[in-house]
């Protein structure tokens, strides 16, 4: 990408998030009625309860890491809660940020995968085909957000707990990298439902579709089609409160955050 343009974009993004989004949106969206799934997370609404974190793990068959793996930082959290601390008591500030995969339009992880296991699908989801992954972990290194997880050990579920596993989501074996899929099994479900009813899917079908968004008591997480200017998520993304994580890297995340005060890095 042209560095000058990138600089300009960055400045725009920092000062007027709305313009930056519009610019990147135009650049990224393909002609025709292509969807671009994205998410808006309102940090002013979020109460850091982590319902999203648990809901995601339940929905997506993410194994519990357990006391031996957690200290080694090998726990898997497709949706994680970042706690960023500034200062020390009493001049202290903590910012809690729910962090799913950003589903970057210009995703560094996709570029480094040697076997094409990770890719961006036609609706903008940065996905991973588990069976294709060889576990080289280039992508976990490349992701500037650390939103990719490697299965260091064979995922284990207590025998009685296996009954709970979601039949719509494959489990992942050892040696495979896994990540947020924007609950694409639910997207598929809602598409089938709409098709069965002989209609197109609407914003109301998907606005709280993902497990994290559905669980969120504060309605802080909104999901939807970023390519549709009328969708709730697009509207939120145009808010003056909107910003994206590390947008200066040019990754074009499709997860937009909202916050009243400008967040100091």
């Amino acid at each position: 990408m042209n560095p000058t343009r990138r600089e300009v974009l960055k400045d725009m993004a920092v000062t007027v998030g709305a313009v930056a989004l519009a610019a990147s949106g135009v650049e990224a969206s393909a002609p025709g009625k292509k969807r671009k799934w994205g998410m808006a997370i309102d940090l002013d609404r979020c109460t850091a309860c982590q319902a999203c974190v648990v809901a995601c793990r339940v929905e997506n068959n993410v194994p519990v890491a357990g006391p031996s793996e957690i200290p080694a930082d090998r726990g898997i959290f497709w949706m994680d809660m970042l706690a960023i601390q500034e200062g020390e008591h009493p001049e202290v500030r903590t910012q809690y940020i729910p962090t799913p995969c950003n589903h970057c339009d210009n995703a560094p992880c996709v570029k480094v995968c040697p076997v094409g296991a990770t890719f961006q699908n036609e609706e903008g989801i940065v996905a991973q085909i588990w069976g294709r992954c060889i576990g080289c972990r280039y992508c976990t290194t490349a992701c500037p957000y650390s939103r990719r997880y490697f299965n260091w050990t064979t995922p284990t579920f207590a025998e009685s707990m296996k009954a709970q596993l979601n039949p719509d989501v494959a489990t992942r074996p050892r040696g495979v990298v896994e990540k947020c899929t924007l609950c694409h099994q639910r997207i598929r479900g809602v598409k089938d439902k709409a098709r069965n009813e002989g209609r197109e899917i609407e914003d109301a079908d998907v606005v709280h579709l993902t497990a994290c968004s559905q669980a969120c008591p504060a309605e802080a997480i909104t999901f939807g089609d970023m390519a549709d200017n009328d969708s709730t998520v697009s509207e939120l993304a145009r808010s003056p409160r909107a910003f994206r994580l590390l947008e200066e890297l040019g990754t074009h995340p499709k997860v937009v955050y909202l916050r009243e005060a400008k967040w100091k890095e």
Partner: protein
Amino acid sequence: MKTTQPEPGRRDFLRAALAAAGGIALGGCHQKEDPYNLNRPKVPGQAAYGTYQEKWITTTCSQCWAGCGVKVRVVEGRAVKIDGHPANPINRGSLGPKGQAGLEVLYHPDRFKGPVRRDGPRGSGKWAAVSWDDAIKEIAKSLADIRARGESRGVLVLDGEPRGMMRELWERFANVYGTPNHVDHRAASDGGKLLAMAYMHGIPEIPAYDWTGTRYVLGFGASLFESWCQSIHLMRASSALRRDMPGRRVKFVQISPRYSVTASKADEWIEIEPATYGALALGLGHVIVRDELYDKEFVKDHTFGFEDWKDAEGKSHRGYKDLVLKDYPPEKVAKITGISVKTIERIAHELVDHKPALSLADGGAAAATNGLGTAMAIHALNGLLGNLERPGGMIVQRRAPFAPWADVEQDEVAKKGLAAERIDGSGSDRLPLALGCIQALPDALLSGAPYAAQALFLYHSNPAFSKPGGKKWQDAFQKIPLVVSFSPFPDESTFQADFVLPDHTYLERWEVVDPVPSVGYQIATFRQPAVEPLYNTRQTGDVLIQIAKAMGGPVADAFPWETFRKASEERLKPLFNVEGSSTVAAKLADLRKGMDKDSGWWLPKFPYEQWADAFKTPSGKFEFYSQTIAKRLAAMPGLEKELDARGIATRGDDLCLPHWETPKAAGDEAQYPFKIAAYRGIDYAEGGVRHLPWLVEIALPRRAAWLQRVEIHPADARQMKIKDGDMVRVETPAGSTRMSAVVAPGTRRGMIGVALGHGKWPPLPTDTEPTGGFALLANLMDPLAGILALQGTRARIMKEKS
């Protein structure tokens, strides 16, 4: 199970190639399970297996008492996901982390698979299977014997439910059997708030708040987004207050010593000295009264004890106005609380300028030795601002109009037993202002005074873990001849049981639920099995009815129903044909259908300004001066001496008014330099959630999720040469435990943060190291009201030698 194998993927080829290159045979050929598809277990006996039938079952969450409606996705008889029910007014389709983790309760590998009896010494954790019939027969016989001996008062029920039909069933049992010892946990959780409601409103219930109309929220250590008892509803409300009203945005100010999650999410956080909330609230009251900014009309019409007053005998008494004006000037309050006079004045004016404003506290704020006065002081602000029973204010939670069960016929034995003093001392001269005091039990049980306990029922209770003095509890249980636990899981208290009669989990049972919802209006929800019971367990309500029946006589007569379900459905009649309710049904089947569709029944009318049932005090008004307290204390012989002996400095009328006492601490500063800030996080439930890995692993920082954690200010840590992640030993006068040090910038200097309810799972009978945080706390409490003091224990920290 034989299967055809999946098609080869690239990984398999690679594996084959690798194996060939290395000349090694492929390990683990003919895998039993497809690694991508671990979720096809056989469910023996499930008629739905193989059909791929998918159902959504409406029921009610039970991970806390708020009563969120849920729908459970059941595929082929396996529950695979719990989502919030969109129609339910408490959670409107959302569901908190605890609710999300509910399936781990259902499918937990450590559940008891059926009833067992002790097969070894007490506390050995050795069990032998027993049939339900034998267990029930034997327990009923023991209970009948105790009753025949005239020692019915010695039967103790520890009941973890704060309200609802199960609680009322236990109460009924206690009343007909003849024991006053039906003890709940509220003294250790929301005790302060309940007592403030009991004495100022005459209604000992958790109140509701009309969030939609509020313009300003002042939280006194209120853990709104953590362990507040209706956190999910509150999170919804708070986010709506901030973002759903264009042009209007509510300010939320949080006051607390520790920089909690709630504090970090507040618009303004104000630091305060621990256990001085009461003084601050009275200081704010001073400014509001001094500047004549209070709601004069409300105070005149609907309150009692604001001005000085004269009783029937002509004796004059002090009022709230005189108390705050004389005793709590901002300068004095600033010294106590560490909050500047300027800030106190500002907050007081903000409260008045942004009416309706709410002043909130939860159990944690009042959990100090000055708890009752503190809770009353905070609540008094609501009366002063005139926002009780008004839009945007605090509203007494109206309960669903369940019909009462027919009265029980008490025989002489029952009457004699019920007249006895309670073992925990609440209501007697030991704790005249308490409404139950669970943490007073171990001492009483060990000393055998006022009398020995004969039998103990543990329902939703594991006090050996969730209350101070774990070991002491276990020793106390040893002195009780019969201990019966209904816990589905082995825990510290259950190890002491003679019988374990495991309850269904909440996803397997039928129940009418009387939630603690904070929506203000009447609401009832229900539970129904999402899946068939997995094991040979039984609902405790049914078991209690069966035990009563097996006892015969008046006890059996009081339990005429076949099942608990029948007993609860009988009470639903007043919910029929209620105009304006969510389901206007003429008969039970229709009501059930409606409740199944909407996940409950409710009457969405806010009971604004219905003064007739808002206050049940002697004056029929909001009492700044509690006449009930006055009456109780007047009946106490040698009050002055007692107050001296208990170290209470407050005297006379002030005891009946909101007031502030210097809090007491355990441990002296020289030996124990740190104050413990014990708190409950979102991942806390009574008895802990340490058995649910999904919740264990949401701890922050994640690296220490499976350990007990102690939070230390960075400067304190540097001074002690403790690095983040070091293992340290925390010692208090009450006990010591090993914890992982978390260098947390949000912790106050000289204070350490201890999250309650964490520790090792499963607990073993051989454990010597107590966990859970409560083991560190001294058993301090409000000396008159019995509120457990979470604040007040001092500690020291020793770095563990590596």
